[in-house]
């Protein structure tokens, strides 16, 4: 997989993950082009399209488009399955996920994606394992959050 984009029906980018190193300028150009192309497609149209020398696989969930670019020999169906698996993971983690969850916790969405895919390849096919890894990492982060907790309490302590 070359990259994954999440964007809203209004064309706002919600998440981007690039597995090929590109300059910001190129990334922006590709994103703009793709968002336009995908949004212009009708709901009944096929989820796959050929674009430049890549294949684009996208799927719409509620107001959010999940869009992946894969190479010529890659399989489209499995890419759809990957998208779906990612949505399932988000859903499990956030509990019936919505677009706002991803906007406000976008770093979490990235962390989940990173546990699921690595370098554009599926890293862990077990949903349970991915979520376990995220939880563990979050627990570690709680350690960091304790500092934040202190801050909170500090804030409340009159000085």
């Amino acid at each position, binding site marked *: 997989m070359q990259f994954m984009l999440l964007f809203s029906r209004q064309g706002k980018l919600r998440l981007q993950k690039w597995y090929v190193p590109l300059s910001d300028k190129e990334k*922006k150009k590709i994103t703009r082009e793709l968002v336009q192309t995908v949004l212009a497609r009708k709901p009944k149209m096929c989820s796959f399209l050929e674009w430049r020398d890549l294949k684009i696989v996208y799927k719409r969930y509620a107001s959010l488009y999940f869009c992946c670019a894969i190479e010529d*020999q890659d399989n489209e169906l499995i890419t759809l*399955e990957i998208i779906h698996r990612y949505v399932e993971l988000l859903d499990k983690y956030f509990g019936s996920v919505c677009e706002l969850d991803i906007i406000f916790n976008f770093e979490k969405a990235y962390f989940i994606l990173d546990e699921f895919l690595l370098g554009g390849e599926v*890293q862990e096919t077990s949903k349970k394992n991915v979520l376990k*890894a995220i939880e563990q990492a979050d627990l570690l982060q709680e350690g960091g959050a304790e500092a934040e907790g202190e801050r909170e309490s500090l804030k409340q302590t009159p000085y």
Partner: protein
Amino acid sequence: MALKMVKGSIDRMFDKNLQDLVRGIRNHKEDEAKYISQCIDEIKQELKQDNIAVKANAVCKLTYLQMLGYDISWAAFNIIEVMSASKFTFKRIGYLAASQCFHEGTDVIMLTTNQIRKDLSSPSQYDTGVALTGLSCFVTPDLARDLANDIMTLMSHTKPYIRKKAVLIMYKVFLKYPESLRPAFPRLKEKLEDPDPGVQSAAVNVICELARRNPKNYLSLAPLFFKLMTSSTNNWVLIKIIKLFGALTPLEPRLGKKLIEPLTNLIHRFSVSVLISLSSGMPNHSASIQVCPLKYLGLLAMSKILRTHPKSVQAHKDLVLQCLDDKDESIRLRALDLLYGMVSKKNLVEIVKKLMSHVDKAEGTTYRDELLTKIIDICSQCNYQHITNFQWYISVLVELTRLEGTRHGHLIAAQMLDVAIRVKAIRKFAVSQMSALLDSAHLVASSTQRNGICEVLYAAAWICGEFSEHLQEPHQTLEAMLRPKVTTLPGHIQAVYVQNVVKLYASILQQKEQAAEPEAAQEVTQLMVDRLPQFVQSADLEVQERASCILQLVKHIQKLQAKDVPVAEEVSALFAGELNPVAPKAQKKVPVPEGLDLDAWINEPPSDSESEDEKPKAIFHDEEQRQAKQRQPEADEEELARRREARKQEQANNPFYIKSSPSPQKRYQDVPGVEHIPVVQIDLSVPLKVPGMPMSDQYVKLEEERRHRQRLERDKKRKKKKDKDKKGKPRRHGSLHTESDDDLAPAQQVDIVTEEMPENALPTRGSPCSPSPHVLQVPVSTLCDPPTLPPEAVRLCTSVTGTPEPLVWGQANPDLALQTYDIQGSLQKDSQVTVSVVLENQSSSFLKNMELNVLDSLNTKLARPEGSSVHDGVPVPFQLPPGISNEAQFVFTIQSIVMAQKLKGTLSFIAKNDEGSTHEKLDFKLHFSCTSYLVTTPCYSDAFAKLLESGDLSMSSIKVDGISMSFQNLLAKICFHHHFSVVERVDSCASMYSRSIQGHHVCLLVKKGEKSVSVDGKCSDSTLLSNLLEEMKATLAKC
């Protein structure tokens, strides 16, 4: 210090966190840019602080802004700072930011090397994990080189979580720094058998991706993957493995056969797993996503295998038929594609029945059209090879016309025409069906938007007109064709109507005049005169012209009739003679007259500047081809040879194909055979039964009636010898009867008329030797052509595995086994044979630089590449990894073929393993039996008789006792092992024929006594004959 901390915290109280930023941006929809630039200023302030928490928060916000399209490359250094934070919370954010905005052009990336190395060796698996994840996004060649070793160590980390990530990231490292592949590969291979499924799947992923780029190097891993495929339960992994095999199969043809079994199992298992995934799937998401691609992939893979190993796929017909019921259209389409290759005489009816039921159920015209074309494709493939009962086929076609809104009317029409013209016996039935169709034409063409299907009326009208002598009630059909409604049809169909109305009219006239009913004849003429004007007014020019022409004709006839002049004869003469289909290649077969130079310019050649585009496309194309042919005859010859090869294979399986000339023409021009063209009687060995086929009720009834009639007939067979309508004509004896069908005669004798060829057509080169069905054809596509093989050589396998020891191979060295081989003779090169050898590497070493050398005899010489001496070997064009086998071919030139020969040879090679490489030799003997010079050549009995009469053949005979095998099997054995074909067989006597590559005729008379067999042979060379008979004796002695 404490104060400072407190102060920092107080500052932070007023800072925005990410949520605030997002909310803020959403609240400032109108002046977003202004708001954000304000935020960026704040962030810059925050980044200047010492507090790492503040910095991390700032970086987190920057990452968000980066996504919105703002440049944050200026903060790269701050990101590195956050990455190096000791707390996981901050480190995580730092790496995230880095993975989002670092790329190869980022200059500070060099600074991260040490930090990453430190994180990789961190005791916390999550620190390591986050570093690996980040690195996967921004790895550069430099980073890859510097960190490759660290990552390699991580591949054997105790935690599967790390191992998994390390394995995956190695792929990225390989891409950036290919030198790392060699040292890392053994460890990667190890990971394929990792106890943790996640690591295993990661390793499969990486190797699959690597193999896709260069499959050859990974062939040796095939057995390991095969094991994984049969044992793994992880669908994701399975898909990857199937993909890998997809890349490997073209390189190793035998993999295909092995794969078929596990693939079927997968499809089986999948039908269960789809249920589970459907039932456990989340209801909020559409069901379509649940379609697991496994089934699809499996079918896809099978269709690929089908091309090379049709037999093994055919066994799984039921499974594929089940896939037709699948919900997913793409799976159904795949299954359809597969079916095309799977039909045989036996299952055609069943498969088509299934497809027809799908046609009825199908929603959406695209899929239905697809089904329709597939049905026709399947039935008509290879010249109707699989159809045993054309009545059935016609009724299928008629049934298809009831489809609404199909676009493929013309296809059905073309089929109807083709079948009716070429299968003479079916015409009567076809005509009756077509007249029924014409009668109900208003149904077919009732609404204009269904115009697709009205094309069949074109065929119906033509068939009824052309074969009007078969019509039961021509008058009724005539009226049907003259209905006013007809004028609503498209012009070209009306034109056909008009033309065929006359044919019909002519035949009615004839009938009436013979029956001496002049009134009736005049009545018909009057009908014509009344109705034709409606066509004369047609807007279509073609219709108008034909109609007015014919109207005048009919009026003239009317005048003559009024004078009581018999006219029928003359009217019928208009349409005398039969129209035969012309073969598409007929034009090519017409020889160019002498003295005609097609390449010569008629006028002065145009100047270069004249654009060729100006010419019409088709002409340009044509000319181009012709020129190419003349100028590069070699390339073209090769192409032709290839095509001929493919065609030959097709024809070998095709009972309807009429071989243009069965006898050799090169030396014995007088041998007859050409006059057998163009009609051949085909006696179908497969009974024409339709087990419980409710294809069309009408048809089934018909079939039942037929059987009933047969039964009656049998009861009083003496009374009535011949059924009037040819139906139930008893079959010729001699063909094989199959159990229950003994009492069922075929519905019709089928003659298939070949497409017409010009009289002076040149015989196709290579056609004289059509392989007999006994000869197994090795799929030529899997063989690699030796460079010395002439392109036009038509290769016929003259022997295959199981030939009684024609070659003796040394087997002293266990490293290399030479498994099967055959010797192929070619009629074109009368002194060359091709020896195919399968080399299998049974050792654990890698074999390369293989060279085969033979001690030439005076008679037999190995064809070596040009410029090499007689002592040089011929290199084998491949290398052999452990456990792999491949086939090599060597060409030998032979002076005399009358004697069997043994040649001594050596195969030298370099065996390379972990210890090093050694140079090895393998000695063998190559045995050329006389049999291997024979090429199975069919011969007609009259040609055979002529040969025997000619008297220039010498004779010899042998007798073998103690044979218990049936005569049938005995003949098959001789055909198979000694490349003969049976010319004629009477009881326990058979004449057989074969031909050597140098054109010697070999005729045998095989007689079977109680326990013995005697073989009398005649051959143009007595030595060859006696040697052949000796070899045959050895074969027979084993029976």
